[in-house]
């Protein structure tokens, strides 16, 4: 069996450190010993595959999962999943979850005093198409308070979970909205040192995908790790 080309390592500052004291929950949960560098083997360059059989095609519309329509401002969130070499990542699973328009999650541990919406669960999933495109219909999530520090509020965001082609390409992240005044105050958004890397988490208002008299469009492209050109020495 030939040696294996691994996936590229992140540039310094482009990914968060585990310990980020401004985010209080990281203090007791971040590892304290240095990570051990793991050259990629067949284990890391393979990963779970999810085909059409594992997807409900209706799950890309979060506003139509109940008898009535979800409350709030309808939005279209769409974009492409690419790798660092600029190639589309086709047929890969994208899972999302979010708060409702009032800033409340349908979760027993969310005690924020804001109304639940009986017509909004806040979860969706889809496979990217052959060009790496995905598209969700949802409502704009509300901002909400949390107890990280005095008067702490999370900027509005949608959680994204992606697999890509390999164990090494797994990505969980959050999408933010342009112009959100809470962004400078949000320690989770600000956990990454590189400003440009942070800014890429902010979606772009997209006239092209906006539907007249129906929904604003936001574009959010995601980039998964790309493959090294040459196999590592083994």
């Amino acid at each position, binding site marked *: *069996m030939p*040696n294996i080309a691994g996936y590229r390592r*992140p*540039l310094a500052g*482009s*990914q*968060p450190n*585990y310990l980020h004291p401004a*985010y209080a*929950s990281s203090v*007791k*949960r971040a*590892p*304290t*010993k240095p*990570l*051990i*560098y*793991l*050259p990629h*083997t*067949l284990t890391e*360059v*393979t*990963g*779970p*595959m999810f085909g059409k059989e594992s997807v409900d095609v209706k799950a890309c519309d979060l506003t139509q999962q109940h008898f009535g329509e979800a409350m709030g401002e309808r939005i279209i969130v769409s974009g492409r999943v690419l*790798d*660092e*070499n*600029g190639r589309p990542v086709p047929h890969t699973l994208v*899972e999302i*979850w979010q708060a409702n328009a009032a800033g409340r*999650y349908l979760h027993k*541990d*969310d005690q924020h005093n804001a109304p639940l919406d009986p017509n909004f669960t*806040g*979860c*969706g*999933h889809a496979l990217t198409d052959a060009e790496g495109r995905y598209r969700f219909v949802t409502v704009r999530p509300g901002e909400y308070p949390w107890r990280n520090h005095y008067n702490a509020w999370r900027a509005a965001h949608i*959680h994204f*979970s992606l697999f890509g082609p*390999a*164990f090494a390409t797994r*990505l*969980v*992240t*959050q999408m933010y909205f342009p112009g959100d005044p809470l962004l400078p105050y949000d320690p*989770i958004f600000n956990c990454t040192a*590189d400003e440009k890397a*942070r800014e*890429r*988490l902010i979606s772009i208002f997209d006239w092209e995908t906006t539907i007249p008299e129906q929904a604003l469009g936001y574009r959010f492209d*995601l*980039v*998964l790790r*790309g493959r090294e050109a040459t196999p*590592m*020495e*083994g």
Partner: protein
Amino acid sequence: MTLQATTSQTVGPFFSIGLTRLYQDNLAGPGVTGERVTIEGRVLDGDGEPVPDALIEIWQANSHGKYAHPEDEQDKPLEPAFKGYGRIPTDGDGRFRFTTIKPGPVPGPGAKPQAPHLAVTVMMRGLLRRLVTRIYFPDEPSNADDFVLNLVEPARRETLIARKAGGQTGALEWNVILQGPGETVFFDC
């Protein structure tokens, strides 16, 4: 064109809304060959407190040492009933438990076999990026020559090797210790 991978963000405390659909704590359904094992453990934070909102994901080869993935071109049998993927949340006591089969050896660098192992992702509120670790098996002679275990100083290797639990055949214990003495080995993957 060169792009940069999107920045990771925490999975947060409410991931069950979006991720429950693919929860899978039994990777070894009917028709799957191999030695059944049940792996149980806890996720503990720097105060030794249980983490009730962690998510564990598993990726592994089948009992023949073959991954259900097109890049695995080894001439070994695939088993349609075995996908190799598990996703298990911790409970209020920080505990997780899943059933699978002990995988066969897969090749490492230079085509030398790696000892049987599971690749593990750990995510939770407070972790801005996932943690990556591995679970190896007890009483496995090939552990001594495993390429990845040998990257780890001997005193910490045991954090990667499950222990036999109780008297039941196939019952194993493996814990995720986030900080301090006994801190689990995590990889820069």
